[in-house]
């Protein structure tokens, strides 16, 4: 399935950049603050000169006054490692518009923003584990690879955020921005999974993909609710009272995720698939502080 982004929309995205609230730890020069000192524009500190330091950063005025060699340190600007996780579990295959389709477009848009800003963009498709991974890419010309990766994604398997994060971050990953596009319908819960990310110090932005069917079940009377991921079934007589309880329960679940993210200073966006996509990207994400 192709991922379609209009030309106008791409042009608008070119004016945006992904933002992280934390200093990044990129290895390459970029436009994001990092905790390392080096070549940069923003003064951060002094330290005594040691052999091998760049003499261009010596503070000659101090030397004249104190007769000591003091080196001026500058905050190094690095690139931003962006890890975009796309949930491709079977539950993402449901909904109209489809949640996976939405997630693909969402990931493509953010990846485009990152690529054009020379951030390192990695794409990870996961369900009950990491299914496929696009290694870190930089530069606008990597966009076609990104789209190609996304187009090949198909819904499969169950959802295990924890397994996916643990497996991906089990390898050494530079601290960066983790963007998760998922419906977060994980039987094991989302908290243990997010704790894995938190342990590695990444900044997280959770895009909660919600289809209208998840939000407002359209069916009634006697149904057998079949879980799209594990095939388990629940026999129920859907009364108005029960449907109302479900709506409240789903809203409570969304609130729990948002509250968890907010409590850790992370971003959260409830992405309804039936909402205008471009408006969502241009306004909601800027409002949430992911884009500027």
């Amino acid at each position, binding site marked *: 399935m192709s991922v379609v982004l209009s030309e106008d929309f791409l042009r608008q995205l070119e004016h945006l950049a992904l933002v992280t609230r934390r200093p990044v730890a990129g290895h390459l020069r970029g436009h994001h603050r990092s905790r390392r000192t080096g070549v940069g524009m923003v003064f951060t500190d002094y330290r005594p000169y040691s052999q091998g330091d760049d003499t261009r950063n010596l503070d000659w005025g101090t030397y004249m006054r104190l007769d000591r060699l003091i080196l001026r340190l500058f905050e190094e600007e690095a690139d931003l490692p962006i890890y975009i996780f796309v949930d491709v579990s079977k*539950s*993402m295959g*449901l*909904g109209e518009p489809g*949640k996976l389709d939405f997630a693909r477009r969402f990931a493509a848009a953010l990846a485009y923003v990152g690529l054009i800003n020379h951030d390192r963009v990695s794409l990870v498709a996961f369900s009950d584990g990491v299914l496929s991974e696009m290694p870190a890419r930089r530069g606008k010309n990597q966009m076609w690879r990104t789209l190609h990766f996304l187009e090949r994604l198909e819904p499969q398997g169950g*959802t295990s955020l924890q397994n996916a994060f643990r497996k991906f971050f089990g390898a050494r990953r530079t601290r960066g921005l983790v963007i998760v596009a998922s*419906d977060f*319908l*994980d*039987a094991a819960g989302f908290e243990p999974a997010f704790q894995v990310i938190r342990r590695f110090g990444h900044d997280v932005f959770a895009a909660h993909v919600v*289809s209208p*069917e*998840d939000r407002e*079940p359209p*069916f009634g*009377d*006697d*149904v*057998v*609710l*079949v*879980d*799209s*991921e594990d095939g*388990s*079934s*629940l*026999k*129920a*007589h859907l*009364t*108005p*009272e*029960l449907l109302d*309880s*479900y709506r409240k*329960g*789903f809203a409570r*679940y969304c609130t729990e995720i948002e509250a968890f993210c907010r409590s850790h200073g992370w971003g959260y966006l409830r992405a309804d698939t039936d909402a205008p996509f471009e408006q969502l990207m241009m306004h909601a994400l800027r409002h949430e502080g992911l884009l500027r």
Partner: protein
Amino acid sequence: MNAYTLSPLLVGAAVAAAVAAVVLLYLLRPPARNQSVSSNLIWQRVLETYRRVSDRWRWWLSLLIASVACVCIVVLAVARPGTDASAGSGKAIVVVDNAPTMATRTSSGGQRFEVAKQRALSLIENFPAATQVMVVDTQRRLVTPAFESRKDAVETVTALQLGQSYQPIVPSAVAFVPAERRYVVTDGVLLGAPPSDFVAVTVFEPANNLGITAFDFNNVPGDPARREAFVEVFNAGSEPRSTEVVISGIGEQRVTREISVPANGVSAQVFDLSDFTGGPIRAALTATEDGYPADDVAYGYLASRRIVRVTLVSGPGLEFLSKSLRAQPRVRLNVISPQRYMDQKVDEAVATDIYVFDRFVPSEPPAAPSLVIAAKPAGWLPARAGDASYPDVLATDGRHPVLRNLSLRDLYVETGSYLQPEEDRSTTVLLRGDEGKALAVAHDGAKRWVALGFDVADSNFGLLPAFPLFLGNSINWLADEPEIVRAQPGIVAVPFRDARVLAMDGAVLPVTTVDERSFFEAAQPGLYTAIGNDRPLRITVNLLDRRISNVNQSAVPVAAAPAEAGSVSAVPFGLSALLLMLAAGLLCVEWFAYHRRITV
């Protein structure tokens, strides 16, 4: 519980079929469609907090059970069950009270008896088809009750008529007939409480009733020319009521009085009938909305003659005889000597109603009925059959009017003469002495006479209390006043055989003769005339009984009747209706549970 209209096998089959149909429909209901959802995670949370799915299936199971129960109840209701635990297909006895008080009107306008027949028919129709039913009435109109099919029993009950006996009974023989079910359909007024092994089905319903409970005539003491009627009116209702009492005689003779009778009380009234010439008298009430009209009328017979002219033909000596005769009511006594009697002219003899010959017997029959004391041989009297000396006196026929209410056990006769009456139907031996010889004879012919074979002075007869009664009875009988017999409706006995009984409208009633008495059935209060021995006997048939007029005094309370009567029609709505209401309730519960979707 047992189904009466269907056999247990059929009811069981119907229930099984209905249950099978319900279960089949339940199983054939559209299955729940599969609906794929992203995850059951939220659903499980909601259901855990709302209700377990298993609870839902238990609820569905309970609804299925409710449906099955509902259908079973409907089937049982259609089968019209009863609650008699002992009900089976055996035998049943249904006693229908057809006592006269069952003619009391009910609020629906019909009679209690009609309601009783409907109840009895309902009972019988609800018995199992193979039940043998014995229909018994309390008036013995059904002479030989027997077990019969339900159909025949229905016809028997339908043809049953009210009886006239005011002493209804449940035949004791019925108690020894084995039967699984025994019912008495009654109002409990005259029959009283039914036997303990019978289930009472009451048809009692309170009713307004005013009735005449006493009606009699008396002469005013000291003035034989005046006569009064005594009327007692009883109010069986719970409210005071007013009515008009009308006493009417022959022609235009009529007395009317408006009276008020307290609730459950009586009003005693005395009417002056001095202006009435005598003969049949009718007392009637004109109360409206009277539940039992049979006691609203009463009949009597007022003697035509007020004064009886008696001539005592006696010599000097027996003063007490003349005094005793004068003491008799209505008697105007004239005492003459035998010589005067012999010399009297014809017109003087016509002025005498009764002669009393004391130790004197004319050779020719007197012109009027006569009482002969110490009879001597004469052509018109029995011949002498020997001397009597200290005989053992025995009253032979206490039913004869002359000996009515007399006790002659202490009669002691010293000397006298036996009489030898002719053996014919008109002559009756009143007293017998030794060897059955006649001491006193009565002759009922063209001119009545009574002859004593002994002198009152030669016996203690004059000293006995029975003597003035004997004189009174003799005068009444000799005066040829029609004899009056009082009776209640029902079988009435006439003291002679082969009587011819006429009703007030002149209709001849069928009569049965047993031994020396005749019997006829007086269906309703009235005046009847029995003719035999060439003399009429007046029979007044009246209820005149407060137990009868009190139609609200039932021994079977209304409140207790439904519980005892149990099954069918003693309750305003039967068990079938109760079952149907229960089924409707279950349907409402099921509808509410299903359509209100309180399930999960």
